[in-house]
């Protein structure tokens, strides 16, 4: 008896709740006022930390969890212990890179940004355009800080209009990983991984193993459909990713990932899957990692950040080589990925801003970078960090770790390897990924899919550029 009306009522309430919840989640982030607050966007000198009445609190928003988060917390504790009574840094995990950016955006609206925020490479232009941070260059100039030991490729990426905008911190570069045992089994030299697409195909033919019923047991190759790889392939082929000199000589207006080189790459990828030489993987990097560590794909592409996991989880010997080239005679540049640290000036006191810079300087020391690199597998931002005790120990145990540093050291720094700088870089990467995937799983040709993808991005760029004036 009671049941009927209650069901109806509850259902109606639910309906309203659904609608309300959908609306609420959209509006919460947009209800704040536009309080700008005080705070300077130029670097304060060391005097800002003199005559302190109390400990300066520094809030640090980041995206480092699990192992990476633990190593980072260790460094924060070390810094706090050294600066007891003067500076206290509080790290706060905000979620993945996209989430941290969304949180930061909401914080700008509400006028309560953190002192330091870790933002991924793709958010660089947005961070510049939102005008909240003290440019890194300002600190460097004020203190005469020597950026000499900092990795050139990283400075190249985070320098825009001749100014270093943020401090590289957790950065990586993609590599090719191989299953050395499979190489030996197939009679290939595990010390000489293939260098270009044609080479990978040739090796994959030897590495692919079929079972009794004709089905593939081990694919020669298998990597995620990951937009970052397109950026990497293009940099290595010395092709800019977007116009206006990769967005560094003026605002970019279009992306160029419909370049013949990329079309060739996607067609090659398609051929590898059609001929069952490559595992039919999707956009998820977790799936690709699992395929490699499970021995189902003998060669894969992944970030240096994945090396620790590969070494731990694989039941075979893992080798690492340079990221492949589209053609053997490509110039072989290399771009980086990962995030950098931004110090918010707007709404913060000089003491806080100065204290934030002290902390960032600490993170960039060879000692801290040695621990960071050894603990996480990220590059040592400070090249002297590779000589530190932790890093040396790790390099002795796993020589694979030095491949990434070598790849960067052997890479030219120019406008193509600086990477594209624009406000919708994150959407561009996804669009490239979707176009690539569309070519693989639908009847659309690679050329059509990629050019449709670039058109889509062009519209977004236009809108972004219009909204920042």
């Amino acid at each position, binding site marked *: 008896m009671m049941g009927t009306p*209650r069901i109806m009522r509850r259902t109606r309430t639910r309906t309203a709740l659904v*609608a*309300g919840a*959908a609306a*609420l989640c*959209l509006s919460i982030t947009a209800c704040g006022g536009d309080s700008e607050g005080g705070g300077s966007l130029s670097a304060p000198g060391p005097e800002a930390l003199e005559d302190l009445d109390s400990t300066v609190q520094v809030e640090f928003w980041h995206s480092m969890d699990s192992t990476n988060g633990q190593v980072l917390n260790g460094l924060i504790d070390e810094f706090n212990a050294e600066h007891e009574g003067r500076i206290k840094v509080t790290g706060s995990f905000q979620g993945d890179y996209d989430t941290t950016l969304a949180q930061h955006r909401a914080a700008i609206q509400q006028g309560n940004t953190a002192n330091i925020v870790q933002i991924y490479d793709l958010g660089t232009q947005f961070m510049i355009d939102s005008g909240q941070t003290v440019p890194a260059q300002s600190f460097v100039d004020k203190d005469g800080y020597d950026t000499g030991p900092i990795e050139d490729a990283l400075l190249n990426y985070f320098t825009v209009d001749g100014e270093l905008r943020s401090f590289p911190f957790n950065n990586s570069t993609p590599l090719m990983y191989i299953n050395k045992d499979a190489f030996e089994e197939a009679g290939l030299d595990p010390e000489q991984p293939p260098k270009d697409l044609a080479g990978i195909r040739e090796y994959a033919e030897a590495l692919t193993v079929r079972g009794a019923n004709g089905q593939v047991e081990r*694919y020669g190759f298998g990597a995620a459909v990951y937009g970052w790889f397109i950026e990497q392939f293009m940099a290595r082929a010395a092709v800019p990713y977007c116009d206006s000199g990769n967005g560094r000589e003026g605002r970019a207006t279009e992306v160029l990932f419909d370049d013949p080189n990329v079309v060739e790459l996607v067609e090659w990828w398609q051929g590898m899957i059609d001929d069952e030489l490559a*595992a039919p993987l999707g956009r998820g990097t977790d799936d690709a990692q699992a395929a490699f560590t499970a021995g189902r794909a003998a060669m894969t592409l992944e970030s240096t950040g994945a090396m620790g996991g590969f070494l731990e989880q694989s039941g075979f010997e893992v080798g690492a080589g340079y990221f492949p080239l589209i053609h053997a005679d490509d110039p072989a540049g290399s771009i980086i990925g990962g995030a950098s640290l931004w110090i918010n000036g707007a709404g913060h006191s000089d003491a806080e801003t100065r204290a934030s810079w002290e902390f960032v300087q600490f993170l960039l020391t060879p000692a801290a970078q040695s621990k960071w690199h050894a603990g996480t597998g990220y590059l040592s931002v400070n090249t002297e960090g590779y000589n530190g005790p932790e890093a040396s120990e790790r390099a002795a145990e796993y020589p694979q770790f030095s491949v990434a540093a070598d790849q960067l050291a052997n890479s030219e720094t120019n406008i193509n390897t600086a990477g594209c700088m624009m406000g919708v870089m994150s*959407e561009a990467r996804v669009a490239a990924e979707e176009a690539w*995937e569309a070519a693989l799983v639908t009847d659309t040709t690679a050329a059509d899919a990629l050019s449709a993808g670039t058109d889509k991005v062009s519209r977004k760029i236009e809108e972004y550029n219009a909204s920042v004036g």
Partner: protein
Amino acid sequence: MASPSGTTLPRVSISSTNRDGRPGGAPPRTGPPRTLVRERRKETLLAWAFLAPSLIVFALFLLYPLGRTVYLSMHGNDIIGRPTRFVGFDHFSELLTADFGKVLVTTLLFTLLVVVPGVLGALAVVLLLESGIRGQRFFRSAFALPFAFSVASASVIFAVFYNPASGVLNGILYELGLGQVKWLNSTDWSLISVSLTTVWMNLGYGVLVLAAGVGSIPREVNEAALLDGATGGRRAWHITVPLLGPQLFFLAVISTINALQSFGQIHILTQGGPVGSTTTLVYSIYEYAFAYGTSDFGRASAQALVLLLMVLGCTALQFGVIERKVHYS
């Protein structure tokens, strides 16, 4: 709803609103005595006072956001997400594209693929349990178990099952000598795979609701049916299923709304892909508003209003068409 202490108070408010809101219905012939008028006013005031807390909550969490969504849907954003310029209905007219049509079709298809197998599956399980098999209690708990899983953990587990290279499902197919299925990586399968996960997640709740419904079927009805010689399938079809009408209807409505709202499993399994084949309306809203460093709250809000209409439409349709056929005992 009916709270024990509120039994007299709602009656007061209901009677007063009824009297006020019924223009032609038996008005007092002569002016009522003053005390009565005052009494009545007091009652009305009291009613509003009791309604106030829920009205405030309702306004704060439903009406305000709804109004805000309408406002945002008519404005363009700056890069931080602040509404900066009025664009009228542009965001809505922009939705009249094949791309958005595909999102709507995907949403409806996903809803069908979740609701129909979900409700029928739960019904089948409950009927089997009712057929008097051994270990009925154990199986009832076992089948209700998915209810205890969070969307996130269930999705992660299914992602492992579906893994193209090392997943257990393809492993089984391989052992059987069958072809490999690209569960999440082909446009033909992705929506089915995500729906399958969702059906599994919803099954527990469905079983709980229907099992409770079966338990409340009067014993006399079943005994009468038995005396009339109805057993097994006949009894299930002619007695149990019709008497489960209210529960089945409830389940259909709730799972429709849940399906239209689904987000977690799509986000974890496919991120709306491949090639948008699992991009439902909610996922599309998320993509415009939050994903990939975007903050296009204007377009996202426009789509949120479309979702609102869609949920309203589906629910109205279910109440208008199906509920008429439900037999309430």
